């Protein structure tokens, strides 16, 4: 006994078949993207793992592939992380605190907010031009670590501020009310209660922003991080090279040996980034547990 006609049944079959095909297509595309990541990592490891040895870490760049290493690049990158952290973390967190706790909801706050979200969309290479014109030339800081670090700090500030604001917004109002009703001032409330409660969230954002700064290449090329540096920087005013710059230098040479060196450099860069991301995830999961 049929409730529906043969034609309607066919139609229904067709619609369900279409749905199944659609679902499989979506799944296939997703797994293809994940597969691409695997291919990318495999390719880099296959090319570069053979070059990773003590000599690679402990040598300066060289014209001869088997004598070349990333010592100066790695040290330069570590300097950069430290300096960028010193500049961007206090300024970023302060901005976020101001915007969330003090600025209110007026026109000024709206304007600053709009401005920050637009800044976060500016291409990194434009920041490089800004750094070149302002820090390298106008303030005559030359092509030094400090020019690079200031440029990178400006680049990641919007990211830190946006992440920081989100973390601060997650602190329940009741905590603020409790502190204020006991007679604490705005700042005492912020410093003693809001900041500690939102700190893990802020740090997660900071670490992710810093890992972006480590991988950025274009702004450093613009401010002129030297690509051949056979010494270690002794202070923030010294010229320097960094991991991505060194990788770019090796990639842009025609010889395949240098490409493999670049792959080895990429492995080091990715390991550094992975460690930072893992730290961020660890902090996040720990606080989630605590809040539950």
């Amino acid at each position, binding site marked *: 006994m049929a409730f529906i006609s043969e034609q309607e049944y066919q139609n229904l079959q067709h619609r369900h078949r279409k749905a199944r095909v659609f679902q499989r297509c979506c799944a296939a595309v997703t797994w293809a993207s994940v597969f691409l*990541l695997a291919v990318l990592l495999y390719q880099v490891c296959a090319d570069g793992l053979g070059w990773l040895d003590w000599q690679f870490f402990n040598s300066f760049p060289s014209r001869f592939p088997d004598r070349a290493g990333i010592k100066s690049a790695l040290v330069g990158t570590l300097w950069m992380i430290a300096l960028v952290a010193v500049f961007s973390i206090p300024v970023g967190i*302060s901005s976020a605190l101001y915007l969330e706790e003090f600025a209110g909801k007026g026109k000024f706050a709206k304007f600053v907010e709009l401005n920050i979200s637009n800044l976060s969309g500016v291409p990194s290479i434009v920041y490089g031009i800004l750094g070149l014109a302002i820090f390298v030339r106008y303030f005559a800081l030359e092509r030094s670590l400090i020019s690079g670090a200031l440029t990178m700090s400006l680049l990641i500030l919007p990211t830190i501020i946006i992440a920081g604001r989100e973390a601060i917004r997650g602190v329940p109002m009741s905590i603020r009310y409790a502190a204020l009703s006991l007679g604490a001032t705005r700042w005492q409330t912020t410093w003693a209660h809001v900041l500690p409660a939102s700190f893990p969230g802020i740090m997660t954002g900071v670490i992710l922003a810093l890992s972006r700064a480590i991988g950025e290449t274009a702004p450093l090329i613009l401010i002129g991080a030297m690509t051949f540096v056979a010494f270690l920087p002794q202070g923030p005013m010294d010229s320097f090279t960094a991991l991505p710059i060194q990788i770019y230098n090796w990639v842009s040479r025609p010889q395949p040996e240098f490409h493999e060196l670049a792959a080895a450099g990429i492995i080091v860069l990715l390991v550094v980034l992975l460690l930072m991301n893992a730290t961020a995830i660890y902090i996040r999961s720990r606080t989630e547990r605590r809040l539950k």
Partner: protein
Amino acid sequence: MEQLSPIEFPVGKGSNTSIHKAGMRWGEFVIKIWLQVCALISLVTTAAVVVLLLVESVKFFKVVSPLEFFFGTRWVPLLEPSSFGVLPLLWGTMLITIGAAVIALPMGLACAIYLSEYASDKIRAWVKPTLELLAGIPTIVYGYFALTFVTPLLKTFIPNIQVFNALSGAIVVGIMILPMIATLSDNALRSVPISLRQAAYALGATSYEVTTKVVVPAGLSGVMASYLLAISRAIGETMAVTIASGQTPNLSLSMLESIQTMTAYIVQISLGDTPAGSVGYQTLFAVATMLFLITLVLNIISQWILSRFREVYD
């Protein structure tokens, strides 16, 4: 904060003391100023970018006529006879962006649909962080991937492809912006209330119909915003296209030839020894101004779509 009015408050026996609003706390005043100054840094940054690009571009346009810049078809800024038509650079950027968009827009949306509509929580918990990892890989790595993997792979299918070509650049930029589209659109689709889906299923719709006729239209503002952000990122993308697609300003339609994008040109100039103050050096700012304006407009449209067309559900 509201002004606190002095409260009459008897302290001790027969005392007339009243508690007034606490005096100015200078420490807190200084802290507040510091916080405000920090928030102003972002405004100053924007102002600096705008003023710098404007001033230097004006200098450039005093030497080169805007007519030649915007409509010229030859970009030979450093050799004599020089020619400053920016169209080849703009075209290079467009080729990469269109190619990347053709790959990433449908694939990114498909990923987002799979993640929000079909994947189990367990799969989602693995795939989404993996995609985020893919988004966090530095662009220089994608450049390496293009040069050492994608181009040789393409060469086996298309033997006459050049070592540096637009296609390989477009592919890796597409791979690069895909996770961004996937995660942002996934957020948008997930914010569509479950009741809408249940209503559609109750009427007998299949999962395909629910997704394409209910969920995606309802989350369309978020999807569109993610598209525009991704396109703006593809336009500003530098290292991958510099490495993969070469340094030849080219108005050709073919994606198999070497091209030069606006960003790749900026890299080329800053690696060379063009003296500061020369016309060649000022082209840097003229090109950067175009880049800045294009990405800014896209970002503003994307924010406008988000605020204007967002469907709000209770």
